[in-house]
């Protein structure tokens, strides 16, 4: 009997020590993963894209009822605010008609100036429209997963836009799905320009809803409402993509409100401007091939010619 009690206590002690050893081992492994992840190796990138590809069909199926419920809620909300919406649209229509006149004048002026300069048109932009199937944002990371990947012609570094402006760039590309790093992520950096003053800056994410402008000249004349657009420096994005507008200065930081509503995105456009940017060249991506495989949802950007 004594022998049996003794063997049981040895087994319990052995189990306790095994668990403690496993904990130490796994904590060490986690630190190792952290260091490897910091180096951003191909193995980690492959593991991530493999997992994204694996869950993409499930997440796509699971996100559809949510999208339907959201559409229904939006429709109810639209019905409630129909009268106000009508008045707003009538006013907007009036403004747009005025802009149409201005636009026509500028178009003819532009045509003659292009003719004078023998202007070379921008490279042909192609895009893939992809539904958002997962929101992998957390306290310290801001990213999304979209249902479009390598087989649809998506390439790492492409711009992710909505109808109103830039929202981020493609970070990882799987066969069927890709991860998009949002402009609000703490590691996101985009070269931008203040449209009114033409001052260059870098838009840096800070994990809040309002990214900030950095590396501006000291004597910059900046006001709330100033439009921020991409500068095109670095070659990843073309110049002039709308990003957002300045909302104010808080604690010496110039904050920007993005045009895109990051909490209400159902679809994203992943745009290939055929620009041989730093990101793609660094990765050895043959940019001449990117976007050449048209997908069922791929098309031309209106007005890209």
């Amino acid at each position, binding site marked *: 009997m004594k022998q049996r009690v003794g063997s049981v206590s040895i087994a319990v002690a052995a189990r306790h020590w095994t668990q403690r050893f496993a904990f130490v081992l*796994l904590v060490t492994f986690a630190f190792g993963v*952290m260091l490897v992840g910091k180096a951003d190796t191909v193995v980690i990138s492959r593991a991530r894209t493999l997992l994204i590809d694996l869950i993409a069909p499930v997440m796509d199926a699971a996100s559809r009822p*949510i999208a339907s419920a959201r559409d229904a809620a939006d429709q109810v909300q639209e019905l409630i605010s129909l009268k106000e919406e009508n008045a707003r649209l009538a006013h907007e229509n009036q403004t747009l008609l005025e802009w149409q006149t201005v636009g026509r004048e500028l178009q003819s002026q532009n045509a003659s100036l292009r003719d004078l300069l023998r202007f070379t048109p921008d490279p042909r932009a192609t895009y893939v429209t992809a539904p958002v199937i997962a929101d992998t944002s957390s306290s*310290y990371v801001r990213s*999304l*997963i979209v249902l479009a990947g390598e087989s649809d012609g998506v390439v790492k570094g492409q711009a992710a836009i909505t109808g109103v402006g830039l929202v981020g760039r493609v970070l990882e590309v799987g066969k069927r799905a890709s991860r998009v790093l949002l402009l609000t992520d703490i590691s996101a950096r985009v070269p931008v320009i203040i449209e009114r003053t033409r001052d260059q800056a870098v838009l840096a994410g800070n994990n809040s809803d309002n990214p900030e402008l950095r590396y501006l000249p000291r004597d910059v004349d900046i006001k709330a409402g100033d439009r921020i657009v991409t500068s095109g420096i670095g070659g990843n994005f073309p110049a002039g993509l709308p990003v957002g507008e300045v909302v104010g200065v808080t604690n010496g930081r110039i904050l920007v409100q993005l045009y895109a509503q990051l*909490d209400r995105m159902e679809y994203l456009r992943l745009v290939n401007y055929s620009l041989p940017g730093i990101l793609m060249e660094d990765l050895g991506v043959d940019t001449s091939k990117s976007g050449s495989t048209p997908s069922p949802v791929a098309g031309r950007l209106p007005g890209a010619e």
Partner: protein
Amino acid sequence: MSLALRPTFGQQIDLTWRRSIPVALAILLLFLGILPWNGRTLGPVSANLVLIPIYYWTLHRPRLMSVWSVAALGLISDLLGVTQLGVGMLTMLIGYRVAVSQRKVFAGAPFIVVWAGFLLMSGVAGIVQWFLVSVLQKTIVDPRPALLFYMIGGVFYPLVAYVFALIQKRSLVRVA
């Protein structure tokens, strides 16, 4: 006589699936958290929601939530991009360790004490995560979003724990 006591193949399958319920629920919560809810309410809280099953099952069915399962959950979270690589894994392991060390205090205690235990565990995990992210980013990151998500996780705990208690009563009574 001993042959009669040996579980059949069907019983073994049943037992295996019952034993996998706690980890399966944790994975389910992780994926529910990353669905595109199009709001800042549930999505960013996903990593904190996974701490709920880790804490609950460590207290009530410790053998069904092993340190290996916790590490795997953390790694999945990291690979999905919910947390920076290695950070989610380490955070969950530390949270698990806190739960294991306090199991004797919280297991069988009144619900309010168990709830306070979860707040303690997720608080420690949150501080570890904030520290690791700050080191990796080489800057002191703003802890306020994490504080908000910590509170949301705390609010969710009673509801999720209630559902787990129902599942435990229904499917895991005789499963150790």
